[in-house]
């Protein structure tokens, strides 16, 4: 009963948030973005034990794929991205919404497929090599895209603004992010209870033994990573339309910003748990925004310190700590008094 009330409150708050806090619509949308990428990272990092530092690759690729598809439907991409102010490209409403819909879905699908390709190559790497290898993929992609003139080069791509009232646009983007986040959360919740979830947990615990038990590890790893990549790609696609303008190194393939933040969110909340990434993302986003506002110039140092402190001193995250203090919340039964007093 209590649980039902809790979920009802969450659903109500999710739906009503942009109206309750009208000044923070974009902030709340960004919060949902953090939650999406954190849960998606945890799918491979926490549940499967493959700590990727390059998941930002799917975010950036999703942005580019969504934008390029949306542009390619009505116009010629090479001309559009390299046009100067002398020629104005106007999207009609249908072109905008059709482009956004097809582009965002296409971004997810493209990222899922590219995860299969990259994963086929990089899943031969383990542990830190996998982390560095995927980081390399993300940095290389950013550098290559920023030299790719057809896709806008270093200047990036500008997309049209939302065709109606801008406040309405903010609400729409909030619901797009929130919808994707809720779908991803429910999907992960279901997935971790299935045989598939058990299999990827087995891979995390001991890959050799899992293989010996007859689990086709490569197939499971590829599937898990491409599912995670699909959602990150969709989030990237939505971001492309929300941000209107983006450029390759600082916005799309932002390796040291979002690319590392998603990992820190998960570690802060607790690796390999369902709620950990969500809690971590919320706390991290709050911390980030507060430091951004009050520590002019030093916010990056504060974030670096937060990363180091989280990793070094707080390794199980908040969920791990809660599990220690309140085990009954997680369904772990503890014998109330294991030591009987001698008098009785």
């Amino acid at each position, binding site marked *: 009963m209590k649980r039902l009330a809790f979920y009802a409150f969450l659903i109500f708050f999710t739906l009503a948030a942009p109206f309750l806090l009208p000044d923070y619509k974009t902030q709340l949308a960004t919060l949902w973005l953090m939650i999406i990428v954190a849960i998606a990272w945890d799918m491979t990092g926490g549940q499967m034990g493959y700590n990727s530092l390059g998941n930002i690759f799917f975010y950036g690729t999703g942005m580019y794929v969504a934008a390029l598809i949306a542009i390619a439907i009505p116009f010629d991409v090479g001309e559009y991205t390299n046009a100067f102010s002398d020629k104005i490209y106007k999207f009609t409403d249908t072109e905008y919404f059709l482009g956004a819909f097809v582009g965002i879905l296409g971004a997810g699908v493209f990222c899922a497929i590219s995860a299969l390709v990259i994963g086929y190559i990089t899943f*031969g790497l383990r542990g830190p090599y996998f982390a*560095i290898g995927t980081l390399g993929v993300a940095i*290389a992609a950013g*550098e290559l895209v920023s030299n790719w003139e057809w896709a806008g080069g270093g200047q990036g791509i500008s997309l049209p603004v939302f065709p109606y009232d801008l406040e309405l646009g903010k609400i729409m983007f909030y619901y797009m992010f929130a919808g994707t986040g809720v779908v991803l959360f429910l999907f992960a919740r279901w997935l971790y209870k299935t045989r598939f979830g058990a299999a990827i947990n087995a891979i995390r615990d001991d890959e050799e033994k899992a293989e010996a038990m007859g689990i086709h590890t490569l197939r499971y790893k590829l599937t898990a990573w491409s599912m995670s990549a699909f959602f990150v790609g969709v989030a990237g696609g939505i971001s492309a339309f929300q941000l209107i303008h983006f450029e390759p190194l600082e916005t799309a393939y932002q390796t040291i910003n979002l690319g590392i933040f998603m990992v820190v969110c998960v570690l802060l909340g607790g690796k390999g748990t369902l709620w950990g990434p969500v809690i971590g993302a919320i706390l991290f986003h709050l911390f980030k925004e507060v430091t951004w506002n009050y520590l002019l110039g030093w916010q*990056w140092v504060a974030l670096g*310190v937060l*990363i180091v402190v989280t990793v070094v001193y707080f390794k199980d995250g908040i969920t791990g700590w809660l599990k220690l203090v309140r085990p009954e919340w997680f369904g772990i039964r503890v014998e109330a008094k294991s030591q009987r007093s001698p008098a009785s």
Partner: protein
Amino acid sequence: MDQILSNISLLLEFPIVNLKIVIDGIMIGALFALSAYGLALVWGVMNVKNLAQGDFVIAGGYIAWWLAKNGVHPLLGVPAAFIVMWGIGWGIYRLVICRVIERDLFTSLLATFGLAIIIAQILNLIFGSDTQSIALDYPTLYFADGFIDVPIAKLLGVLMATVLAAGVITFMKVGRMGQAIRATAQDARAARVLGINTDKVYSFTFSLNAAICGAAGAIVVMVWVIQPFYGITHSIRSFVIVTAAGLGNLPGVIAAGLGIGALEQYGAHIFGIGYQQAVAVLLLLLVLLIRVQQQKRVRKSLQ
């Protein structure tokens, strides 16, 4: 595409250009090998993969640059950077690294990534985000009708890197602490049983690594440019070199360092200077791929 083809045909038409690129690459590669040696040291002894390696290099460069700006002779910046970075390395070891040694490798990787962000941002706040270098007023030597130009400053840099590397290697072979470091790398528990204070060895190793990187950075600022955010590329180069050479393979590290320097110069020549970072990273992926294939043959994974 045409640009790339014409660049390649230029290389074929004038073989002397190849020589120039290789010489340039080797002079830079000597410095890459230096910081990669430090990484291999920390990796082999403490099993910590230091992603802040490149930021140590850049920090050392800024120390030398700041001293040179205040009237100290640039060549003195190298020992100064060595000493200051030794202290900083010791502080970082005491605060962070000593708590991640026993933990899994991803923890150390992330913790040092956090450190890398902190160092780069502090440098950015203090020195600004412009690229900096020290111009040494030494003449330039010309060979082969002026096709090959070798600035004496660069030669001096290579010479200092060689002296430093030779000093560290001799110390590791002969010095009492060097022997203790090698013993700890072989088997930390056995070393502890035999009365070696491994905590001291670890802190010494990490400080030495930071100092080597700092000195390398002080040379980099004389022969090349530095910028607060160039650290990550240096770190990646170090990883490429160590992954290609393997741990504890000193000739391999030197050969890989020089080779990476030369390959990067070739990449910059063929694809244009905008691709220099991309070439460094693509080399990493290439090396990892080759290593994975090698490991697959013996049915093992790279870990």
